[in-house]
């Protein structure tokens, strides 16, 4: 453990102080220790490391009934049948007299065999589930790629469902996830760099990008930020996200998390970088803009008119979900003259019995709605429906007839709720949902002016935000006219000739010119 930063030392030191008899004190020393010639010495070292590890098995046997050897594997991570058949059986029945490492290597019919020279290598291999063979009088060991991890089958992503298009989603196993990317982009241009993050968890992390499309400076920046991470363990990609984002004090996500390999590949082809973390069924995409949080794969599988209309609907309801309750509060408490007389009368009549000012009413109902949503998300599915029925009754009918809330308010809350679920990315929707609470307060203090000031602050924040150097509001501000065709509208495929400005500038064109289908072109072919 060389080259550790100051803070890291502090972490390890405090651990030592807490548990004086625990392993960490002697753990760092084994890493670069070379394997000894004597098997007993190696075994003693490994056994002390794996003391009290019931799942690590040390199986000693004789090769060809003469040389002492030990096979070490982790129970449950190793394919035991294959080890019996392809490692143990040939070795025990061996008729050779010289049991050197090269000889043994030839005896074993396993594709992936690795040579190990240090204790650290052995520990890594054992942790990965690969069985390790140590032979007496050899200062090298062998490991065999016979691990067998438990993994979930590939299923349809639950949080990002689509009407049309591929239905497979990432799973918790990194190797499967990288294979999903490779299945879609079949060529050497898809590069996947791997590293390990987490001092104790040793979590494998892969960084995927397209060679020749992604900006090398971006790749370097991503790698740098990942390598800076010093943490005990990485249990989900959210930890990575929080440790590498540009502005840690923002409610808006600066990396996109997706469960869909096709979305990840779409971004790869636009020059973005994809980070895959073992143990998380999703990929992180960097850099992202605000507008990429409002895009869904369905925009591209639908006809482009429909894709465009859907996008506009989403933008509209983004504003509704942010401003719905605050505008209602502002109009009801300050700007009654804005409403047509009949509507105003209807509103006044329904608010007649309500004992609260508009702000309290709005806060009450919105908080209630958020509580119901949170309860619905955490409960087992069978009980979830009960919550939604009770919720509908409580915040809907009963609140009105009890005179706690007015019918228009319930409508506003319901519409806002629906609107906030329209954001295709959950993280974007939840940021906007949170921000509507301060907006409600502003609306009740300063009316429409307060709403405008609130919007100004949010916009200023969004304009200051960057994701890996890319301005968050690109291509709207700073304006990139070329980029608008995939933001304001969803232009047809043949018009989407160029990649986005700041990520795709390295390799500008994604299509040959003149891809628009037309009858004349069909005739040429005949």
């Amino acid at each position, binding site marked *: 453990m060389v080259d550790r930063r100051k803070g890291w030392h502090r972490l390890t030191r405090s651990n030592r102080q807490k548990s004086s008899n625990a392993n960490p004190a002697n753990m760092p020393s084994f890493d670069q220790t070379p394997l000894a010639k004597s098997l007993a010495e190696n075994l003693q070292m490994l056994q002390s490391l794996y003391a009290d590890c019931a799942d690590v098995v040390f199986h000693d046997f004789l090769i060809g009934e003469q040389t002492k050897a030990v096979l070490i594997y982790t129970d449950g991570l190793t394919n035991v049948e294959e080890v019996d058949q392809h490692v143990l059986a040939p070795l025990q029945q061996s008729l050779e007299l010289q049991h050197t490492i090269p000889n043994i290597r030839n005896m074993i019919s396993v594709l992936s065999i690795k040579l190990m020279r240090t204790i650290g290598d052995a520990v890594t291999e054992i942790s990965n589930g690969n069985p390790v063979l140590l032979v007496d009088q050899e200062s090298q060991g062998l490991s065999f790629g016979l691990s067998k991890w438990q993994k979930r089958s590939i299923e349809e992503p639950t949080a990002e469902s689509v009407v049309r298009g591929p239905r497979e989603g990432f799973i918790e196993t990194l190797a499967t996830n990288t294979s999903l990317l490779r299945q879609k982009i079949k060529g050497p241009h898809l590069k996947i760099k791997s590293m390990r993050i987490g001092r104790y968890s040793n979590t494998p992390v892969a960084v995927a990008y397209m060679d020749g499309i992604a900006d090398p400076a971006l790749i370097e920046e991503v790698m740098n930020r990942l390598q800076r991470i010093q943490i005990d363990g990485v249990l989900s990609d959210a930890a990575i996200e929080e440790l590498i984002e540009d502005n840690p004090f923002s409610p808006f996500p600066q990396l996109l998390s997706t469960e869909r390999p096709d979305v990840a590949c779409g971004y790869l082809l636009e020059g973005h970088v994809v980070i895959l973390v073992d143990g998380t069924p999703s990929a992180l995409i960097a850099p992202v803009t605000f507008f990429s949080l409002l895009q869904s794969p369905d925009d591209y599988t639908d006809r482009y008119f429909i894709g465009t209309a859907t996008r506009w609907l989403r933008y509209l309801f983004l504003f509704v979900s942010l401003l719905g309750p605050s505008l209602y509060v502002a109009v009801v408490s*300050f*700007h009654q*003259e*804005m409403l*047509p007389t009949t509507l105003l009368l209807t509103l006044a009549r329904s608010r007649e019995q309500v004992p609260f000012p508009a702000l309290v009413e709005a806060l009450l109902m919105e908080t209630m709605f958020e509580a119901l949503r949170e309860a619905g998300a955490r409960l087992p599915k069978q009980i979830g429906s009960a919550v939604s029925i009770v919720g509908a009754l409580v915040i809907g009918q009963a609140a009105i007839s009890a005179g706690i809330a007015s019918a228009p308010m319930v409508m506003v809350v319901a519409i806002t709720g629906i609107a906030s679920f329209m954001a295709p990315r959950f993280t974007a929707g939840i940021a906007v949902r949170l921000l509507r609470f301060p907006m409600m307060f502003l609306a009740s203090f*300063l*009316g*429409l*002016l*307060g*709403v*405008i*000031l609130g919007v*100004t*602050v949010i*916009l*200023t*924040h969004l*304009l*200051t935000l960057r994701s890996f150097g890319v*301005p968050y*509001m690109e291509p*709207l*501000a*700073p*304006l990139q006219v070329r980029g608008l065709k995939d933001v304001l509208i969803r232009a047809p495929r043949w018009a989407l000739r160029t990649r986005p400005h700041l990520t795709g500038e390295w390799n500008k064109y994604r299509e040959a010119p003149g891809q628009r289908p037309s009858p004349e072109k069909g005739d040429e072919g005949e």
Partner: protein
Amino acid sequence: MIERGKISAGQMAIMLYLAITPTAILTVPSISFQYARQDFWISPLWAGTAIATVFVALRLHRMYPGLNLLQVSERVLGRLSGKLIGFIILFMYLYLDALVIREYGDFVVGAFLRQTPLIVVSGCMVLVSALAVRGGVEIVARFGQLFLPAFLVFFLFIILPIIPDLNVTFMLPVMAEGIMPSISGSGILQVWYSEFITISFLLPFVADRRKAAKSCTFAILAVILTLVISNLTTLLLLGELTDKYNYPFLVVARYISVADFFAHLESLFMAIWVLGVFVKICVFYYVTVLGTAQWLNLPDYRTIVFPIGFMITFFSMWMAPGYQELIFAIETTVTYYQLTAFVVIPVILFCIASIRKQVSGVR
């Protein structure tokens, strides 16, 4: 340089447009009408100071690339007198910013939030602007860019539904007494036009400087066009009543009624107008902060954003006892000293600079 941001020439033009139009639309018509009567829609065409200031700023920047007015004055006049001139210009910016805040505060309190204290309205605005100014010139420019389409759409949204109600006879007779009334009506507008000197502070950050002259011309034309249209609409709708209102254009907005449902849109007008004023305040606030930091040789301007914000807020409170006095001040004294600081001083600077250049060229 203490600002590392870069803007494009187009962004600069948008910043200027939004820094000048929103308040000009609101305050100018009723003052301008008193001098020019039915010809006051012609007044915006006499944009002499706009052209002069833009010309001077561009030429000075060509002579001293990368330097703004304050730095140029130090180069031309020497350290001490340069700093002194710089102080006058800076103080004028501080004053101007406070003036805009006051105009905004009086407008909001007078027309909408009658019971809210002025300082709350002004203070909130300064606070919000401070956040944007801290982000630097890039953020202010992007905000303008983001907001310009909304402003234009809204402007048309007020003008278009009103066209059937316009009465063309209100503008007759055109130029009955020659062009003099329209010119005297444009006097007050020169205050707004002289604000074009601000490009001197923005030019050092413009990435594509070749387009700068073109963009500035475009900005001037856009401002003139917008003012002519808004003045004309006000005139044709209100006629002789124009100067009876503090904010004639607000009355225009109030007049809209689409399908008997969209009526009384003045709150919406306020909303959009506030965003426009926000850009204006940010631009001048930014120039004040940046200039002060340069004047004091500070390493970073972000540290003085909030202190200067406080000063602006209190200046705006001390500016005048009420709206009528404020308008009176704008009509009389402010016109003179703003024109002195933004037109006369730069023009003299330019003359001295070009003479010095000539002399040194001869040598």
